[in-house]
C-alpha cells in the first residue's frame, strides 16, 4: 500500500500538469516600448524557429497596442498563440515617450512577472522602428557592452539599475542609439532627469561612468590659449556619498602641460570641470585632488 502511495506522490511531484511544450513558448529576445496617444505600442522579437542548416535562430516581429502593459502582453500572447516567455530577454528599447509614469508601470510589470530576470540591457533610441524592423537589435547588446568597457562613452544599464535609481529618485542613465546608413550607432549617454531626457556630451558621459565607478581612470583634456592643451590622467577616484554631499578624492597625473600651468591652477581648472558636471549628481561636491607630475613655471 505504502509503495503505491509513494508512486502516486512521485507522479504528482513531476509538475507535468503545468508543462508547456517548447514550441508553445514565445521566447522573447527584444522588446521596444513607446507611448502613442495614451496607448503603449510594444514591438517584440521572438524566436520562431531554428534554421536547420546553420542552427541560427529565426526571429519574428510582432506589434501590439493597448493602454495597459499587462493587457498588452496578454494581447500579444493571443496574437501569436504562444505563451510569452521573458526569461531570455536581452534588450529593452525605449524612446522619449517613456516618462516617470510609464517607467513606474514598466518596473511594476517586470517586478511582478516571475519569469523575468532583471539583468537585460535598457537602451534609448529615437529610431526604434528602424532598429526593430531591420533586425539591427541583435548586435546592440554586444555593441554597448564593448563600447562601455573600451571607450566608456556609453553605459550598460540593466533593469536592476533602472529600478534602483527610480526608487532612490536618482537619475537614470541610458545609452543613446541611432540608426544611420543601415548601421546601429551609439551616440552617447542620455539621462532621465526631472521627467525629461537630456543628452550628455562625450566628456560628461565619461565623467558619469567615472562617478558610477564603471571605469577606474579617464583622461581629461583642457584647451588653453594658442591651441595649447593640458592633458590629465585621473586615477583612483575615491567617491563617497554622505548625506547630501559627494566626497571625491582624486589622484591626478599630468600627461602633458603645454599651457604651463602650476598645480594650483590645474587644481582650479579640474575642480571647475567637476562643478560643471554637478547637476548630474544632485549633490554638493567636496573635492580633494592630489596632483602629481612635472610642470614648467611660466
Amino acid at each position, binding site marked *: 500500500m505504502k509503495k503505491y502511495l509513494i508512486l502516486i506522490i512521485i507522479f504528482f511531484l513531476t509538475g507535468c500538469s503545468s508543462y508547456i511544450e517548447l514550441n508553445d513558448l514565445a521566447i522573447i529576445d527584444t522588446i521596444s516600448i513607446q507611448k502613442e496617444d495614451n496607448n503603449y505600442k510594444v514591438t517584440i522579437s521572438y524566436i520562431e524557429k531554428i534554421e536547420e542548416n546553420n542552427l541560427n535562430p529565426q526571429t519574428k516581429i510582432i506589434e501590439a497596442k493597448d493602454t495597459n502593459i499587462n493587457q498588452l502582453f496578454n494581447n500579444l500572447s493571443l496574437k501569436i498563440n504562444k505563451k510569452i516567455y521573458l526569461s531570455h530577454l536581452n534588450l529593452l528599447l525605449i524612446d522619449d515617450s517613456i516618462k516617470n509614469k510609464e517607467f513606474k508601470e514598466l518596473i511594476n510589470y517586470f517586478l511582478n512577472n516571475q519569469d523575468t530576470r*532583471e539583468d537585460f540591457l535598457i537602451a534609448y533610441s529615437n529610431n526604434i522602428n528602424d532598429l526593430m524592423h531591420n533586425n539591427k537589435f541583435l548586435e546592440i547588446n554586444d555593441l554597448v557592452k564593448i563600447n562601455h568597457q573600451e571607450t566608456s562613452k556609453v553605459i550598460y544599464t540593466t533593469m536592476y539599475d533602472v529600478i534602483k535609481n527610480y526608487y532612490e529618485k536618482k537619475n537614470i542613465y541610458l545609452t543613446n542609439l541611432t540608426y544611420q546608413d543601415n548601421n546601429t550607432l551609439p551616440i552617447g549617454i542620455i539621462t532621465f532627469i526631472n521627467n525629461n531626457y537630456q543628452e550628455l556630451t562625450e566628456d560628461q558621459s565619461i565623467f558619469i561612468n567615472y562617478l558610477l565607478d564603471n571605469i577606474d581612470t579617464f583622461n581629461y583634456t583642457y584647451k588653453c590659449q594658442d591651441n595649447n592643451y593640458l592633458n590629465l590622467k585621473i586615477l583612483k577616484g575615491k567617491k563617497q556619498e554622505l548625506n547630501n554631499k559627494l566626497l571625491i578624492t582624486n589622484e591626478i597625473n599630468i600627461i602633458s602641460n603645454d599651457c604651463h600651468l602650476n598645480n594650483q591652477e590645474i587644481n582650479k581648472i579640474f575642480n571647475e570641470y567637476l562643478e560643471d558636471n554637478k547637476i548630474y549628481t544632485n549633490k554638493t561636491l567636496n573635492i580633494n585632488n592630489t596632483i602629481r607630475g612635472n610642470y614648467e613655471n611660466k
Partner: protein
Amino acid sequence: MKINKIEVNITFLILSLSVFLLNFSNFTPLAIIFGFLLSFFLILLTEKLNLTKYKLTNICLLIISLIILPIYLNKLTYFISNNILKDYSGIVISILLLISSLFLIKKGYHTIIKVVLLSSYFIILILLLGLLSSIYLKIDNFTINILKDNNLFRNTLLYSFLIYYTYFLTYGESSSLVNKKTLLISSCCHLLSYLFIIGILGLTLTNLYEYAYIVIYKKINFLNFIERIEFMFAINYLFCFYYFFLFSFYKVKSILKKVIKKDKLLTLTLVILSIIIFTISIL
C-alpha cells in the same frame, strides 16, 4: 542507530537557515546580534533549569508548533508556486508536502535527521556558490538611513524566538545538545547573508523584492559557466523551510505521543491535525 553531536549541530544549522525577518534596514545586524544574545541567554537558562522536563514547556511547545505549522506551510506553498513550480496549484503542493511530512514523521527522528544530513551537502555547496556574487558588492550601498527603521525591536524578538524554537526542535530524543558555537556560526551566517544582500542590492531593492536572496543568485555569472543557478538556490531554500516544517510537525507528534499511547489513535490524530493545518494555511 545513534545520532552524534555533529549531526545534531548540522541539523540545527540547516534549520536555522530558514529563520526570516520582517524587513531589512540598517539596524538588521543589530537585530541579529541582539536576537542571538537573547536566544543564547534563554538557551543557557533552559539548560540550567532543565526546562524541557516540565509539562508546561511541552504544552507551550505544542501550542507554538501548532501556530507555526500553518504559517510555514503557507509560506512554503507560496514560495514553491512562485519560484519552482510556477502555474502549479498551491493546494496540490500543500497536500503533497503534508503527505510526505506525515510519512517521514511516522518513520521517526533518526530517519528525519538522516534525510537532513543527506541534503546538507547540497545546501552547503549552493550556499558557498553564493560567495561568487561578492564581485557585485558595492560599498555605496551601505548608506546609513536612521529614519527608515521601525522594526528593530520586533525583528530582535522574532529572530531570538525562531532561534530558540529551533533549539527545541533539535533537542529531542538524542541526548546530544546543540553546541553554543553552532549558535554563533548560524548568527554569523545570517550576518554575512545580510551584508551580501544589502551590499549587492542596496536597501531599497532588498525591501522591494520578496525573495532578495534569489535575486542575488540570479546575478551570478561565473565565466559564463556558472549562471542561472537561482533555481538551485530556490530548492535549497525550499529544503530549509521544509525541514523546519517537518521538525515542527515531528515535535507535535512527539509531544502527543506522551499523551496518546495507542499508535492507531496517534496516526488518526495526526491526520486530522494535518487536515486542520492545511485548511488554516489556505485561508
